C-alpha cells in the first residue's frame, strides 16, 4: 500500500561509533515486526544485526554503508537510513543526511558527547536536520543521562530538554518516567514488547514534577497557546506535543529521550517520538537547480501528481545487479514508466521498483514524493538526479571534499587485475571521495581517499568481495604547490622547422588567489590575440598547473591575467598559443616565490586526563599545533591541527601511549605551507624520481 505523505518519516540514526546505534536499529526493526529474532552487532550467534549486511562490517563491528530500510509504526511508514559512524566515511554520512528529514542522535549515557558526536552534529547542522536525542545504554555502569543532556547544552550549544527520566540506573534500571503524560513506563515480556503504564513511583514524584516544569518552561517558548495554558494550569498532552514538534522542526529544541536498546527499554516511546516530533516530507522545503540556467533554484512541490524529481543517493551491488536507492522529492515513480538521468542525458525505463528492508525486498508498483525506494539495474552514479522527461533539474550537488591521501595498487596476476578493475569501477561510483586512476608515467593504479582507514576498507573489500589479490604501496600525501607573490610573464613561442611554423606571444601576470584554485582573466584590448585563441591560452595555463615544477604536485591558488600578446596570420594556432601559455607560466612561476602546501588535519584526541602529557607530547612531535584542551573531570579532549604526513600510524602510537584508553578522529581542515625542511625533502625526492 502506498503511504500518505503526512504519515511518512525519513530518518537517520547518527551516532558515535560505540553508542549502540546498530543495536538500536535492530530493536526498531523488531518492534516494527520487520524481523522475528534479534541479534547483537557482535553477536555470539554469528548472524549479526540485520542492517549490517556486509561481511567486513560484521567483522569490525561497524556499519560502513548506509542501507535504507522501511518499517511501519502503527499507521506511519518510516524509512530508516543507517548512517555510518566513522569519520573517514563522512561522505556516506553526508549523502545520507541529504535525503533525511530528521535524525535520532544516539549518545552513550556513559561516554556522552564525544568528538565524533561533534562531527556528526556539525553535519546535521549543515543540512538543517531536525534532531531527537536518544541517550542509550542506561544499563551500563556509570550511566548518567542528566550529564549527557547537560553536555548537549554545553558542548554542542543545543537547547536540550529532558522528555523522560530513568527509573533506576545501571543494573537496577527498571523503566522510564514519561514527563509529558506524567506516567511511569515499564517494558515487560521477554523482549520488552509489552508496555505497562503505571503511576510514577512516589519517591520520584518531586523530581519528575521539577523536570516537567523545566521542560514546560523551555517548550512553551514555541507556543503561545501552551504558555497561556501553563499560566492557567490547563496544560494538555496535545498542547505540549505540538509545541515540542514546532521547536524540533525549527531546530531550536532537542527533546532528549533515553533507554537501553540492549535491555529492550525505551524503544517504543522513541518510535512514538519520531512520529510525534520529526517532520513529514511535506514539512521540509527542498530545492533543485536548473541545469540550463545557472544559479536558478526551483522549489519542489510535495505533490504526487507533479512531474517527478528524484535523487540517486546510494548504489549497492547485489546478486541481481546494481541496486539504486532513490529519494523522491516531487511527483511519483511508477513501474514501467520512463525516467531521465539529467547528468548523462539518457532516459531509462523503470523495471522493478522495490521497498527495502535490510536484506529483504518487497516489489511495489508505485511510490510518490517523500518516499525512499530502490530501482534495479539502472546504469548511473550516486548523486545523479532522475526526472520525468522534459525537466532538466539537478538536486543540490552534495558537498564533496577533495581526497587527501593516495596509494599505488599492484595486482598480483591478471585475474586479480580484472577483479581489481571491476571493484574500483564499483567503489568510485558509490563513493565520490574515493577515486582511482592510472598514473600516466608509472603506469600504476592509484587510489585516493579521505584517510588511511578509508583506503584500508576498500582494499579489504577488494580482497574479500572481489577476490582481488593486490599489493599496496606506501600511502602518499596529496601535496600542492602555490605562489607567494605576483610575477609578470612575457613569452614568445616561435618555431620554424619548415612547413607551417608556430607563433604565439603572451604577456601578463600571475598572482596568488585566495580561496580558489584557478582564475583566468582576459584583459586584452584590441584583439592582439584573436578571440579564438584566448581559450587556447587558458587551456595552456591550466595544463601548466597540473604538475608543478617544485615537487610535481598540482598547483593551486593562481590568478592569471592576460594583458597583451601578438599573433601571426599564418603561423598562430591553438597549439602554438597553448605552448606559449605553458612556457610563460613556467617563466613567471619561478619568480613568484613558489612554495609547497601540505594538507593539515583537524585532529581530536579523547581519553582520560591522566594521559594529557603523553598526548600533548605526541602531537607536538608530529608538528601539531594544539588549539585547545577541554577537561571535564576525568576526561579530556585535545583539539589540534596536524599535518597529514605526520599522522600515519598514529592510532598505534596513541594506543601504546595511553594503554588503549584514548582514541582520535581526524578530518581535513585546510592546506598549509609546509616548513622548509619538509619542502626541501620533497624537492629532493622529486628530483631523484625524475633522474631515474
Amino acid at each position, binding site marked *: 500500500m502506498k503511504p500518505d505523505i503526512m504519515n511518512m518519516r525519513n530518518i537517520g540514526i547518527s551516532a558515535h561509533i560505540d553508542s549502540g546505534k546498530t543495536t538500536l536499529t535492530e530493536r526498531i526493526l523488531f518492534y516494527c515486526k520487520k524481523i522475528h529474532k534479534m541479534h547483537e552487532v557482535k553477536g555470539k550467534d554469528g548472524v549479526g544485526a540485520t542492517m549490517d549486511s556486509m561481511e567486513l562490517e560484521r567483522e569490525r563491528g561497524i556499519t560502513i554503508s548506509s542501507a535504507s530500510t522501511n518499517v511501519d509504526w502503527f499507521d506511519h511508514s518510516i524509512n530508516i537510513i543507517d548512517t555510518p559512524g566513522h569519520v573517514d566515511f563522512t561522505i556516506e554520512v553526508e549523502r545520507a543526511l541529504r535525503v533525511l528529514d530528521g535524525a535520532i542522535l544516539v549518545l552513550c549515557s556513559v561516554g556522552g558527547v564525544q568528538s565524533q558526536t561533534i562531527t556528526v552534529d556539525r553535519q546535521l547542522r549543515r543540512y538543517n536536520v531536525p534532531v531527537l536525542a536518544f541517550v542509550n545504554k542506561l544499563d551500563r555502569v556509570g550511566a548518567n543521562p542528566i550529564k549527557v543532556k547537560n553536555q548537549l547544552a554545553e558542548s554542542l550549544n543545543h537547547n536540550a530538554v529532558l522528555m523522560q527520566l530513568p527509573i533506576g540506573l545501571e543494573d537496577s534500571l527498571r523503566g522510564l518516567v514519561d514527563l509529558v503524560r506524567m506516567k511511569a513506563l515499564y517494558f515487560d515480556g521477554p523482549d520488552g514488547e509489552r508496555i505497562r503504564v503505571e503511576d510514577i513511583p512516589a519517591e520520584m514524584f518531586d523530581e519528575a514534577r521539577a523536570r516537567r516544569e523545566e521542560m514546560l518552561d523551555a517548550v512553551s517558548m514555541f507556543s503561545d497557546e501552551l504558555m497561556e495554558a501553563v499560566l492557567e494550569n490547563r496544560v494538555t498532552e496535545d498542547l505540549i506535543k505540538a509545541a515540542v514538534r514546532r521547536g524540533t522542526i525549527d531546530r531550536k529544541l532537542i527533546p532528549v529521550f533515553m533507554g537501553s536498546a540492549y535491555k529492550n527499554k525505551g524503544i517504543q516511546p522513541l518510535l512514538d517520538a519520531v512520529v510525534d516530533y520529526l517532520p513529514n516530507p511535506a514539512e521540509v522545503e527542498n530545492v533543485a537547480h536548473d541545469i540550463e540556467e545557472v544559479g536558478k533554484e526551483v522549489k519542489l512541490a510535495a505533490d504526487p501528481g507533479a512531474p517527478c524529481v528524484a535523487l540517486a543517493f546510494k548504489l549497492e551491488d547485489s546478486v541481481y545487479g546494481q541496486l539504486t536507492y532513490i529519494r523522491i522529492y516531487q511527483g511519483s515513480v511508477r513501474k514501467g514508466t520512463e525516467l531521465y538521468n539529467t547528468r548523462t542525458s539518457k532516459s531509462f525505463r523503470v523495471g522493478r521498483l522495490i521497498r527495502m528492508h535490510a536484506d529483504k525486498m518487497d516489489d511495489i508498483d508505485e511510490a510518490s514524493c517523500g518516499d525512499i525506494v530502490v530501482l534495479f539495474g539502472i546504469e548511473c552514479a550516486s548523486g545523479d538526479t532522475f526526472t520525468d522527461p522534459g525537466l532538466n533539474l539537478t538536486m543540490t550537488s552534495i558537498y564533496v571534499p577533495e581526497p587527501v591521501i593516495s596509494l599505488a595498487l599492484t595486482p598480483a596476476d591478471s585475474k586479480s587485475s580484472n577483479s581489481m578493475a571491476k571493484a574500483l569501477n564499483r567503489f568510485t561510483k558509490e563513493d565520490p571521495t574515493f577515486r582511482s586512476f592510472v598514473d600516466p608515467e608509472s603506469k600504476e593504479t592509484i587510489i585516493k581517499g579521505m584517510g588511511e582507514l578509508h583506503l584500508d576498507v576498500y582494499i579489504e573489500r577488494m580482497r574479500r568481495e572481489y577476490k582481488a589479490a593486490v599489493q599496496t604501496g606506501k600511502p602518499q600525501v596529496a601535496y600542492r604547490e602555490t605562489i607567494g607573490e605576483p610575477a609578470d610573464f612575457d613569452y614568445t613561442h616561435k618555431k620554424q622547422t619548415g612547413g607551417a611554423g608556430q607563433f604565439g606571444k603572451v604577456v601578463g601576470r600571475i598572482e596568488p588567489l585566495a580561496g580558489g584554485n584557478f582564475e583566468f582573466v582576459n584583459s586584452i584590448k584590441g584583439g592582439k590575440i584573436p578571440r579564438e585563441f584566448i581559450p587556447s591560452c587558458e587551456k595552456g595555463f591550466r595544463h601548466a598547473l597540473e604538475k608543478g615544477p617544485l615537487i610535481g604536485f598540482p598547483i593551486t591558488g593562481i590568478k592569471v591575467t592576460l594583458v597583451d600578446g601578438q599573433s601571426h596570420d599564418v603561423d598562430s594556432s591553438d597549439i602554438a598559443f597553448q605552448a606559449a601559455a605553458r612556457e610563460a607560466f613556467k617563466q613567471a612561476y619561478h619568480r613568484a616565490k613558489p612554495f609547497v602546501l601540505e594538507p593539515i588535519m583537524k585532529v581530536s584526541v579523547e581519553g582520560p586526563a591522566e594521559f*594529557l*602529557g603523553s598526548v*600533548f607530547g605526541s602531537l*607536538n612531535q608530529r608538528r601539531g599545533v*594544539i588549539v*585547545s*584542551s*577541554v*577537561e571535564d*573531570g576525568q576526561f579530556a579532549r585535545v583539539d589540534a591541527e596536524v599535518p597529514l604526513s605526520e599522522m600515519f600510524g598514529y592510532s598505534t602510537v596513541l594506543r601504546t601511549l595511553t594503554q588503549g584508553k584514548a582514541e582520535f578522529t581526524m578530518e581535513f581542515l585546510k592546506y598549509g605551507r609546509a616548513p622548509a625542511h619538509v619542502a626541501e625533502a620533497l624537492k629532493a625526492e622529486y628530483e631523484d624520481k625524475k633522474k631515474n
Partner: protein
Amino acid sequence: MVKTWLVKRSPLRILENALQGGLGKGNLAVLASRKGIGKTACLVHIALDRLFQDRPIIHVSYASRVDYIITWYEDIFKEIMKNRDAKAAAEIHDDLIRNRVIMNFKQDAARTDRVLQSIEAMITAGKFAADTIIVDGYDFGAGTPEDLRKFREFGLKLGLELWFSASLRGEAPVLDEKGFPLVLRPFLDEISVLITMDSRNDLVRLSLIKNKDAPAPGELPLKLDPRTLLIAE
C-alpha cells in the same frame, strides 16, 4: 614590522609603565569588575599584545566554551587590525594561533592541582614555551587562598606571568573603603597587581589599586572603549 609597530603603539605600554616595566615573572595580577564590564575583552587584549611580541600564551578558561573564547580573540584581533593590510593580518593571525593554546576546565570538577598538572604538561611534554597564563572565569567566591597560592608558586617555578579576572557579584558595595573588592580580601597576599574596572558615564575606567610593593596610583589614564572593546587612552 607591523607587529613591532602594534606593540610600540599599544595603549598597554601605559599600563606597563605604571607597573614599572610590567607584571614580571612569578607575579599574579587580577582584573576585577562587575559582570559585563569587559574583563574578558581586557584579558584578550593583553594576551594579543603578548602574541604580537611572539610570546606564547596559555588561555585558561573556567567558564566559556572554547569556540566562544576563539571568537573573542577573532573579534578583538579584527578590531586591532582594522584598516591594515590584509596579507600582513593573515600572517600575524597564523602566528598567533601557533602561539596560543586554550585550556578549558570545570572549576567544580578539576582541582587546582589537576589544572596546574595539565598546564605543566602542556609546557613541558607539549614543548609549549608559554610565559603568560591568562585565567578567565575563576570563581574566587568558590576558591581558596590556598588555590591561588599554588597558582602563584607555579608561576614562580616556571617563570610565568599570571593574569586573572575576578567577577564582583552581589549587592553594592562590592568594594571596601580603600577600593579593594570585598571578595578578594582573603587573597590579597597572593595578588601582586590588582586592577579594578568600573563604568561611569558610559566609559569604563581602569584603576590600579595594588601595584606590587610600590604605591598604587589609582585611576589610570586608560579606558575600555565600549564600541570596539579595546583598551584605549
